[in-house]
């Protein structure tokens, strides 16, 4: 849509919803694009650890996709424009499998989405495996981007949250190498900016799920891929979730390509 000369207004809307998650009131921000009359397949997008829904800016603006899909991107609590719940100052933020799954299912039900596709990157790529296993009734398919069953800590994540080291600078230093060397500078640095804007301790708290609590390797064989197909896309420069980590040994009926 164009108005004043040179001004482009994106076909993306952003709104807030108020809902209870883990028994606590939350004000959650989400963006969406595509048909809202039920004609599009809902596609719920889950951002990575330590960042927010802006990661899906290109997808929300891709007309080929939004012609067929209602693309929905929400900021997890503590991320982006979704604040932490009241009392956060006395809490150490730690994402767990249980909380993460509940969050996604709560949002899907709140928006009355009809068996959406769930697509997530990194921690999001992990949790979609658990959604496929435990909630195939809610999701018609899942897409894992940089998806792994488990990745053990390979560096001390407390560097991400200590007062004498800038958390934003440290988060960006970590993610700097997760971007491929040929990624366009503009997109590399916008992506890093989002990580730099993360709240204190949030990236670290997300990695608790990634590298401590969220090990799904033992339950992969329980995923019924005929009820909820699993699609995986993994880039080779991500040294955190390598192509080998995305092999997902035990997942039924995996074909790669």
């Amino acid at each position: 849509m164009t108005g004043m000369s040179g001004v482009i207004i994106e076909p993306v809307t952003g709104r807030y919803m108020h809902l209870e998650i883990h028994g606590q009131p939350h004000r959650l921000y989400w963006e969406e694009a595509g048909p809202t009359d039920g004609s599009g397949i809902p596609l719920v997008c889950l951002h990575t650890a330590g960042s927010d829904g802006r990661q899906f800016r290109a997808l929300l603006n891709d007309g080929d996709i939004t012609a067929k899909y209602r693309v929905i991107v929400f900021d997890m609590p503590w991320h982006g424009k979704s604040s932490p719940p009241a009392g956060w100052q006395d809490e150490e933020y730690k994402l767990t499998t249980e909380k993460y799954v509940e969050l996604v299912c709560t949002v899907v039900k709140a928006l009355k989405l009809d068996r959406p596709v769930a697509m997530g990157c990194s921690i999001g790529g992990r949790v979609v495996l658990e959604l496929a296993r435990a909630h195939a009734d809610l999701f018609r398919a899942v897409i894992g981007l940089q998806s792994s069953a488990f990745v053990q800590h390979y560096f001390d994540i407390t560097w991400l949250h200590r007062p004498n080291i800038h958390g934003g600078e440290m988060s960006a230093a970590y993610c700097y190498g997760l971007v491929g060397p040929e990624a366009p500078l503009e997109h590399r640095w916008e992506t890093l900016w989002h990580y730099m804007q993360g709240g204190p301790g949030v990236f670290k708290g997300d990695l608790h799920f990634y590298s401590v609590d969220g090990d799904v390797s033992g339950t992969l064989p329980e995923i019924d891929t005929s009820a909820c197909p699993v699609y995986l896309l993994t880039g080779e420069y991500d040294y955190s979730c390598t192509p080998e980590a995305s092999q997902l040994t035990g997942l039924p009926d995996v074909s790669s390509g």
Partner: protein
Amino acid sequence: MLEKLQELVNADTALVRRGRWLTADMMLEIGDVRHLVKIREGRIAEIAPLPLLAMPFDFAIRGTEEAWHEFWQPVPKPRHHDVMALIREGKMRIEGDLEKMMAHFLTLKMMLEKPRLAGRRDGA
């Protein structure tokens, strides 16, 4: 590649500004060869061979010759494009005052990449 590092870093005014709070002596080990990179307020003041029994450094990055060679390719192969990636691959390690190092880790990564980027036409 190391011989170009000083000139390339110091010519990058944005990088020098980013590193203006960084003053440190960094030891770089490339295979068996050790160098002391003296960084002063974001500029590299000197790069000198570091003999054994030398003055202490603040922190060090030690890597195999192959690791650094691949790291400085215009387009390194996967998992050889980043210090942390190479640490995870077991081909580099860091030691010393890691608190100081981590506080400036993004700047240090950007400095160390300069010889690679200089080899690329797009400079990216």
